[in-house]
């Protein structure tokens, strides 16, 4: 088990390194291959009044005049050992993990990321709890009452959920519940440390909108899995042994049907923590997704790198957890 974990962690590190290299290449190498000079790259980080002097100063200070490989090495090195930068009268120290300074505002990137993670995490966790509970429940009920009115209704709603994008349901939710029937004043993110009640209250609409989208998929997956497992021989055996139906369904049926759900959940959740881009835009939440969009728009490379790596980390991490969970769910899986 330990050896397995070490192997996985090592692989994860390598993967993150590859992700960083690819991201770096997309934002720095590709424009150059496309024929952009360093000056043309640098000019986008100078304000409206770009002149040769300011472009040269910015180019030098951001290290854009260095060979690409050196820039990449410096970036990776700073993550582990920190770095020093000078964007003012005195040099300032950026401690590890240092993701550098924004090319535009010259503000340190890592503290900005850490301030935005709780927003996205709050959004993702709340929505995930909602969609897993509702999705799996609906799926199980539908499977057990296959063909009934409840099944049909649930699947119709599920289809609706999958088909309606978040920028529709989210805006609809906002229009209905902050304007038409103003139950909420507006949706603001209040840190949970500041006021847990307000935190919860303000996130209800975003959670429900997101959960509506995802639970639909989970309901359909659960239903399909349940239909399959409930027809298996061992379910008949379990029933024949005289087990209570609830036990048959939950312990024997659902447990086996859960494996694909957990897999996809790991992916979905990791992706969402990496940045619920559209949801954050719709609800004006200042999380990782909104930060990433702004950074890409600004070609603010250190931020793009930082956000991408953190997002990739969450995805890799969630997948690792999922793989470990397999062992707990499915007795056939053992790691060595």
């Amino acid at each position: 088990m330990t050896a397995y974990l070490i192997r996985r962690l090592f692989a994860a590190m390598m993967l993150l390194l590859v992700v960083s290299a690819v991201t770096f290449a997309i934002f720095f190498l590709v424009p150059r291959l496309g024929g952009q000079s360093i000056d043309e790259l640098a000019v986008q980080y100078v304000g409206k009044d770009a002149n040769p002097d300011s472009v040269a100063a910015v180019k030098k200070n951001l290290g854009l005049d260095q060979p690409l490989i050196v820039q990449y090495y410096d970036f990776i090195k700073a993550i582990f050992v920190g770095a020093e930068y000078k964007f003012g009268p005195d040099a300032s120290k950026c401690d590890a993990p240092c993701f550098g300074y924004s090319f535009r505002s010259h503000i340190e990137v890592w503290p900005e990321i850490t301030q935005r993670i709780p927003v996205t995490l709050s959004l993702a966790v709340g929505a995930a709890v909602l969609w897993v509970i509702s999705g799996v429940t609906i799926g199980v009920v539908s499977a057990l009452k296959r063909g009934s009115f409840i099944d049909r209704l649930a699947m119709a709603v599920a289809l609706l959920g999958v088909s309606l994008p978040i920028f529709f349901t989210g805006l609809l939710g906002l229009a209905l519940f902050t304007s038409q029937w103003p139950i909420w004043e507006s949706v603001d993110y209040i840190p949970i440390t500041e006021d847990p009640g307000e935190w919860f209250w303000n996130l209800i609409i975003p959670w429900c909108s997101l959960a509506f989208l995802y639970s639909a998929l989970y309901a359909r997956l659960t239903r399909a899995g349940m239909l399959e497992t409930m027809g298996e021989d061992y379910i008949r055996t379990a029933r024949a042994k005289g087990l209570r139906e609830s036990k048959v369904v939950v312990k024997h049926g659902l447990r086996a049907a859960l494996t694909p759900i957990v897999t996809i959940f790991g992916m979905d959740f990791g992706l969402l923590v990496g940045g619920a881009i559209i949801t954050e835009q719709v609800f004006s939440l200042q999380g990782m997704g909104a930060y990433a969009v702004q950074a890409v728009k600004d070609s603010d490379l250190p931020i793009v790198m930082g956000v991408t790596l953190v997002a990739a980390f969450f995805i890799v991490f969630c997948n690792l957890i999922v793989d470990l969970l397999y062992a707990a769910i499915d007795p056939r899986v053992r790691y060595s």
Partner: protein
Amino acid sequence: MKTKKVSAVLATALALALTASACGDSDDGDGDNNNKNGKKAAADAALESIVNPSSKKGGTVTFEHSDVPDSLDPGNNYYGWVQNFSRLYGRSLVSFKPAAGAEGLELVPDLAESLGQPSADAKTWTYKLRKGVKFEDGTEVTSKDVKYAVERSNFAPEALSNGPTYFKAYLEGGDKYKGPYKDKNPEGIASIQTPDDHTIVFKLAKPFADFDYLATFNQTMPVPRAKDKGAAYVQNIVSSGPYKFESYNEGRSAVLVRNDQWDKSTDPIRPALPDRIEIKFKVNPTTVDQHLLNDRITVDAAGTGVQSKNQPKVLKASEKDQTDNPYAGALSYLAISTKVAPFDNIECRKAVQYAVDKASVQQALGGDTKGDVASTMLPPSVNGYAKFDMYATDGNKGDEAKAKEHLAACKQPNGFTTNLSARADRPDEIAMATAIKASLEKVGIKAEIKQFPSGKYFTNFAGNPSYVHEHKLGLMMTAWGADWPTGFGFLDQIVNGAAIKPSGGNNIQELDDPKVNQGLSDGIGMTDAAERTKKWGEVDKLVMETASAVPLIYRKNLLYRPDSAANVTVTQAYLGMYDYLLISTNKN
């Protein structure tokens, strides 16, 4: 099929909900949009008067913005709205009078006791600072803090590159000084002198009679050297105005509270009514408009008005009284390259002047709420505007006969083909270009529209003469707003031969006309304000005589004032947005 129906139902519900919210009653609370005499303010009331006047102190004024500022650091920004907003926490040497209508373009001393005292040649400018003005930490503001602020904002592009660099361009030795971050000599630049703590003298390399306008830039808001952290100063800005930062979250929000060191007796221009000012960034633009209509926020900080798609909603009878439709201080125009054949011949340029159907351009843009048909380079809201129309056509619809006459004089009687550039991500500009293309076609000029990304429009394409020549961009769509609202501030960058740059310039027609250049340099040497202002109208005529640009539209914004917003007036000094120094709230 089923889902389609359901979606349709939901879509209808959404539409209904949005409309319902838009016309939601505004009779809650005491915040009716009334003038003191109880009369309901009409549409455009804030153009010439202060709507909903109030002297009530207290409350929280809330701003929202769909984007982020370039920086709230007074030494590191260029956006007009930040110039307007930063006056809440900083005092520049000079400012614009917080007043309604044309009065809003008047200069008033702010940190200085009076406007600048120029030397006879307009090359030396002296300001006396008011006594008793303090930073939020209680230390007195001195002329050295102003000098330092100018140095860091103009001479340290390695850390603060967002702002304009007019001081660097005009100060003596401005091209040599390396800035306070590199040049550690505490004496700083020699051409800004501080003979005592309350006197500051600027020595310029050439006459510059608009200097008081430069002194309105927030770059002259004092910054204490000891507190300057360069780029990170934005996180701990030291206030010299009535409000100071309680919190600042990069790219997300900021909260301003009263600065107890601010003394009203030193500050004749700021009423400072609200107790608290909150601003949020990156709010979904739809949400910003909705919050305005629902009276949940006081102002949309951007000051560019309601989004196009929501304009019909606020122009309905029930809401129209709460809208203002001011000039945005900007001109959309068609630049004609003087270097691309056949436009190197003035007759061909004149043909375009007459051929363009400006009425159709205005229609394409969305009608008169988007702007008025233009005939001059200077918009009416700029000091020095003089009304004239050198290439007048009936109903602004263009004149095919006259255009053809000039085509014949240009030896192109059957027309020719050329290229017309526009910014791909600006639908307004594309729409106008399409209308122009259609009207040019009527006289035989075939223009092919070429689209470019706006981020690189001036550096790589239209503003890059070698690209323009090589790819024969004869006609180029563009727009311009002045950095300060005078004829010189507006024209110098777009028509002066000296403003032609190998890349990133704004004189994209490459106009280098000796009469225009001379007019500009004569005018800026005149210390008599009335004479100088008159000169700009003449320069405008000289520019139009070259036929190198077709003024299309004086752009307008459609602003909305919520019920609770008090002391609302449009300031032409800041591109036709509301005056953020005056605005207060009726809410508690």
